[in-house]
């Protein structure tokens, strides 16, 4: 049985961050919020990794830093997290760069509107009708049809 102590709080915090990030990733409609949810999930994963190397009553893994002969925590998860943080920054920067371009091109970051734009443009390329659902929307309010707009590349050159 899990007793509510310090360890449980640590694990629940790390896993909670991960779960919050996953929920945000699936349920958010704004793409920027999805990126933020990804950041949260990443923080949760990093915390879990650090916790995996924790050792009770141990010093930081630096020789001559802690008391003589003291045990030290496992350095390998710390290195992994160090690299994961930097990779995370790179991924986030790239995602934000793509978002900037998407916002320039479509003027929105809403996932549903973007999807409608994409479908509309695809249909225009194929010279077919944009796809329409034959059923009533199951939840949420239906979106207004996307108005035709000039190709995003033409306005700026």
């Amino acid at each position: 049985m899990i007793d509510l102590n310090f360890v449980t709080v640590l694990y629940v915090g790390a896993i909670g961050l991960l779960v919050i990030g996953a929920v945000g990733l699936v349920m958010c409609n704004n793409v920027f919020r999805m990126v933020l949810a990804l950041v949260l999930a990443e923080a949760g994963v990093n915390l879990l990794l650090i916790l995996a190397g924790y050792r009770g009553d141990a010093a930081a893994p630096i020789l001559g830093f802690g008391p003589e002969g003291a045990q030290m925590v496992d350095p390998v998860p710390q290195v992994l997290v160090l690299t994961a943080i930097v990779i995370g920054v790179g991924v986030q920067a790239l995602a934000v760069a793509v978002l900037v371009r998407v916002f320039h091109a479509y003027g929105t970051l809403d996932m549903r509107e973007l999807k409608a734009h994409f479908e509309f443009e695809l249909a225009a390329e194929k010279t077919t009708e944009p796809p329409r659902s034959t059923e009533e929307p199951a939840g949420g309010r239906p979106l207004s049809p996307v108005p035709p707009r000039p190709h995003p590349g033409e306005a700026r050159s």
Partner: protein
Amino acid sequence: MRNLAAILFTGGLGFLLLVIASQLDFGHPPMVVGQEILDVAGDQVGAANIVTSVLLAYRGIDTLGELSILFAAATAAGLVLGHRHGDAPSDPEGGFILRAGADLLFPLLLVVGFYIILHGHLTPGGGFQGGVILAAAFFVGVLGRPAKGLNHDVISVIEGLAGAAFIGIGLWALFLEGEFLKPMLDKGTLGDLISAGTLPLLSLALGLKVGSELAGLMTSLSDTEAREP
């Protein structure tokens, strides 16, 4: 439907992870690699900070791979964002406090960044952390005066030289010792600034590379032209 599936999925994920975590013996990690490294790293590498030993000596080639990932991300971001046109309007200059603060912080951040990079084998810190501080030092100036910007050519030269230095040190070790990125040179006294052989050099190359990479990334993000109304 989608929300229900999402909640079910993430709830299951959280439950699974919690169950695994509750089975673990907290505080007694089952990994033997870490203990082994803790026992031998002081003699083998000669760096007081074992995290840096693992990062630059035992997992040196992974660090090189990660540098290439960062490089790919920075290049892709620059490619996606594109160059700004010469006559494109830039953001207005920051207020007096921001500009004065940027001027004041720049030398301090530079000193702290290089301190953290050069003491990476002794104290918590190292190439990645110090590099990010260096990038911040340059980016604060860009925030204060967006029109001035940063010279992307200089950044690319620093970035390329630092990356080449990292690989060059690795190749040097390959020719002399037969192993890529093997720590070389005199290990010195544990805890001295000049010790641990090539680790401080690798740390410096790593820091400059990460710093120039991130500075270029952030300036190309802030340089992006505003959306046409």
